[in-house]
């Protein structure tokens, strides 16, 4: 829990490099959304979450389960998953399914993939913590396109009604969904106002700035009695110039030349 922003930046570099090779080797993945969420995952696992204490550990749900490779790569960085397992990503009988499964990987708290599932489950976990009179925290990461799913707004109403201030939602606001820009399908704006209207305390950060992420995540709840919603402004494919902000890189697989070029940019 003592990682500095600089250490987190180094860890995020390693996580992206592992992810890049996992996707290239497997010939599948969702590299755009994996790179947009990497800094959020790294900051949580290496700088925020209390993973000790068994059932008293903090919970993190990656609701945008298509970014599974980023989760696995981060778990390996945190020493929670054997590095050698990463090579099995999506192979037959691997625990590392294309979308994470709680029954297959120890630190995966919820099986996700279909969008809009993680937040209701997280609300249930936060209610469970309250029934236990526990201070353990629950974090849920969604994509921004994912917030088009109505189940998230059902869950936010329940969270606000119960004043679940140990629950933090992080929205990976990269502005893109699978086939289009979010603004061109069913726009979310004014997102912060909507979240406030649904009873959340809202914080906006640069989702690639580890100091900002660390500050926002570690200090939640930002208002007592309210769930916190952190809008993390990110770029799909960050920091690779030819991937960044291009919806084509939702699930494109980099060619060998592109792997070399991406390695170069990530390692800078």
């Amino acid at each position, binding site marked *: 829990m003592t990682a500095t922003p600089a250490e987190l930046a180094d860890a995020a570099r390693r996580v992206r490099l592992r992810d890049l090779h996992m996707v290239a080797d497997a010939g599948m993945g969702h590299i755009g959304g994996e790179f947009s969420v990497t800094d959020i995952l790294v900051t949580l696992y290496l700088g925020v979450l209390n993973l000790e204490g068994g059932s008293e550990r903090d919970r993190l749900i990656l609701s945008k389960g298509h970014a599974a490779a980023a989760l696995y790569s981060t778990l390996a960085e945190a020493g929670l998953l054997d590095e050698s397992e990463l090579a099995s990503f999506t192979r037959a009988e691997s625990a590392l399914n294309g979308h994470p499964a709680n029954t297959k990987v120890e630190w995966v708290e919820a099986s996700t993939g279909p969008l809009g599932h993680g937040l209701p489950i997280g609300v249930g976990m936060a209610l469970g913590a309250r029934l236990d009179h526990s201070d353990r925290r629950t974090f849920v990461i969604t994509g921004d396109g994912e917030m088009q799913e109505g189940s998230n707004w059902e869950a936010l109403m*329940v969270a606000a009604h119960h004043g679940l201030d140990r629950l933090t939602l992080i929205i990976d606001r990269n502005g893109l969904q699978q086939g289009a820009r979010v603004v061109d399908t069913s726009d979310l704006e004014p997102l912060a106002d909507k979240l406030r209207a649904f009873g959340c305390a809202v914080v906006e950060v640069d989702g690639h700035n580890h100091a900002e992420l660390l500050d926002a995540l570690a200090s939640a709840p930002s208002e007592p009695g309210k769930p916190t919603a952190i809008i993390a402004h990110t770029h799909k494919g960050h920091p690779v110039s030819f991937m960044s902000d291009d919806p084509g890189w939702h699930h494109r697989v980099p060619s060998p030349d592109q792997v070399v070029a991406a390695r170069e940019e990530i390692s800078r």
Partner: protein
Amino acid sequence: MTLLHDCRDAFASTLVDLAEHDPRIVTVVNDSVGSSKLGEFGRRFPDRLINVGIAEQAMVGVGAGLAASGKIPFVSAASCFMTARALEQVKIDVAYSGHHVVLCGQSPGVAYGELGSTHHSPEDLSWLRAIPGITVVAPADPAETSAAVRWAAAHDGPVFLRVSRMGVPDIAGLDGEFVPGKSAMLREGDDVTIIATGTAVAPTLEAADVLHAEGISARVLAMATISPLDREAIVTAARETAGIVTVEEAYVCGLGGAVAEVVVEEYPVRMRRVGLRGFAPTGSTSWLFARAGISSVGIADAARALAAGR
């Protein structure tokens, strides 16, 4: 006049009794406190009744999150809304995730009669039995409901419990332990077999009496568990009797389809499937039962035809 019972009463009182001794038991509802008869539960354990409002997807997801936190959630709502609106949550958050969530489908089938097909759930048995890992249970009377609730609280895995509201009599022979995947032979017989589940068990016994008076010996199996099925009892019935009639307050691809799969794979014999087909016309529950042949007359007709080799 036979005394008839609403199985929700046995469901709710058993749950209160269990919750008294096990603080892990919680309920999650969608503004369905009254229709689940959980008022007493809420008065006794106000913190442990979570009413998410009219939000079925959140209801099932919240249940899964509670289960992941060591609680034993009974998620209770009208079956039509829970199974249809939240089917993906049932599949992923509960079944695929292997969580001990007890999904309580209240007032299933055509219990809401005249309210119409929007409020019916004849699909629930078919949908739920298609999902791996969920034990699907449709008790036939209060004693079996109570036993199934106790079993479900102790079983470490996903359960769908179909809780009927229409009046059913106490059924002799169903007052023991609930054993999942095991049917109960309520009548011995070797001419024809009738396999019934839930609310269809009582009229099936009446039909067996009618047949007996005619000299037709009908075996009656009460099959409370739709998944996993009691394959052994089905295959034995196929070997030993002229054919199998299935009876259910559901589309015939529920119990009927499940039994037919076993019969076709293991020992093909003639079958008749009595149950619901198509969206229902407007009518009361009892009228819809009679129309579908879920009655002593309809069931006896189907069994008679099989016994006669028709």
